[in-house]
């Protein structure tokens, strides 16, 4: 007999060892998330996926499902909190979507749409984060990094390279690359790396590919983030 938990009043089946988020997504139930990716070990930093488990907030991407637990997700309170976190991510970095190559394909943006965000609400930090254009094929625009560590995990766990890493603490946390010069060109990063293709936002960008796809045909012009996540589950990319 498969075990189940209650998500917003309906049963969701799960297998032993699955997190709430994994089980929910498998059942076609969407919970907003940014640092979770089906191919990687859970991380739990963005907190967008926060749900209430038996009345207390918990990150659904790291909390294991247990039989009979009562999980709330689509509540006004939680969505308001998720919106606030999304807004925090927008003001923390420099997100000028109109001039971002990732616009339309960006999961942060799509999540913000999903949550009905019309503005970033908080006062902007406007940090100064110089770009790294040293690599012949890739550009790093750190202004948009949300510290989800997907590139770090991909490079370490899949590419066996450690091209990316997190450094600093608190608001000074930032992404670094594995070279003495601090430049991407001096690392062994390559196009075929998994890490080259996991950034949910517009940091790790392929050069000479920007704005190729016209507005209207980009990922999130055609799909909502929920639909995208549904299709990604089956896909091996």
């Amino acid at each position, binding site marked *: 007999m498969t075990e189940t938990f209650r998500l917003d009043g309906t049963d969701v089946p799960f297998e032993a060892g699955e997190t709430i988020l994994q089980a929910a997504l498998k059942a076609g139930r969407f919970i907003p998330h940014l640092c979770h990716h089906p191919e990687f070990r859970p991380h739990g930093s963005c907190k967008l996926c926060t749900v209430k488990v038996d009345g207390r907030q918990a990150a659904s991407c790291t909390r294991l499902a247990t039989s009979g637990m009562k999980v709330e997700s689509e509540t006004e309170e939680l969505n308001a909190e998720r919106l606030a976190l999304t807004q925090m991510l*927008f003001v923390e970095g*420099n*997100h*000028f*979507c*109109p*001039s*971002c190559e990732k*616009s*339309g394909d960006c999961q942060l*943006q799509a999540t*913000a*749409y*999903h949550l*009905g965000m*019309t*503005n*970033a*609400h908080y*006062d*902007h930090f*406007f*940090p*100064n*984060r*110089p770009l790294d254009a040293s690599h012949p094929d890739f550009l790093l625009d750190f202004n948009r990094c949300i510290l989800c560590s997907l590139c770090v995990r991909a490079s370490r766990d899949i590419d066996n390279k450690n091209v990316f890493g997190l450094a600093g603490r608190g608001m000074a946390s930032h992404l670094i690359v594995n070279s003495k010069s601090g430049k991407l060109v001096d690392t062994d990063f390559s196009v075929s790396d998994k890490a080259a293709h996991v950034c949910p936002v517009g940091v790790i960008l392929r050069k000479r590919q920007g704005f190729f796809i016209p*507005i209207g045909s980009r990922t999130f012009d055609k799909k*909502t983030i929920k639909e995208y996540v549904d299709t990604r589950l089956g896909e091996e990319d």
Partner: protein
Amino acid sequence: MDNKLKVATATLAGCFGCHMSFLDIDERFFELVKHVEFDRTPLTDIKVLGECDLGLIEGGLCNSENVEVLRQFRRQCRILVSVGACAINGGLPAQRNPIPLSVILDEIYLGEAGIAHGLIPNDPELPLPLDKVHPLHEVVKIDYFLPGCPPSADAIWTFLTELLAGREPVLGTELLHYD
């Protein structure tokens, strides 16, 4: 219609794109003017802002004049709306923010490729630039935000008609865009 809503609009540090998009509502404009009357806006010749029901502002805050105009709008308009990316987060102009203003002025007016004759203009008629470009909501209270660069004509239309009908304007996913 007697009780027409009074509407004013302005462009601060923006590109007029949002106003152009507004005009893109095309023939719906005829419907709109049945319900609204325009006060100060680049579309009319009215220079002095009167008491208004609704103020639509495009563009962010780049200089002291922008701030003065915004404050005046806040004083005179019952409802104030940030229209477009620049008004909402500074947009394209705000991409100068990481560079110190002194470096920018130096480069433009005193540097090799300088355009003035080795002088930074200091005419009191000219508004002084702020050290950073800021979104409107960091300086006055903003009641609504209409994102997009520019917001599409449909988004603007939906927003206005909802507001005119006395409803909270909510943009559906098709109309909500940041670019």
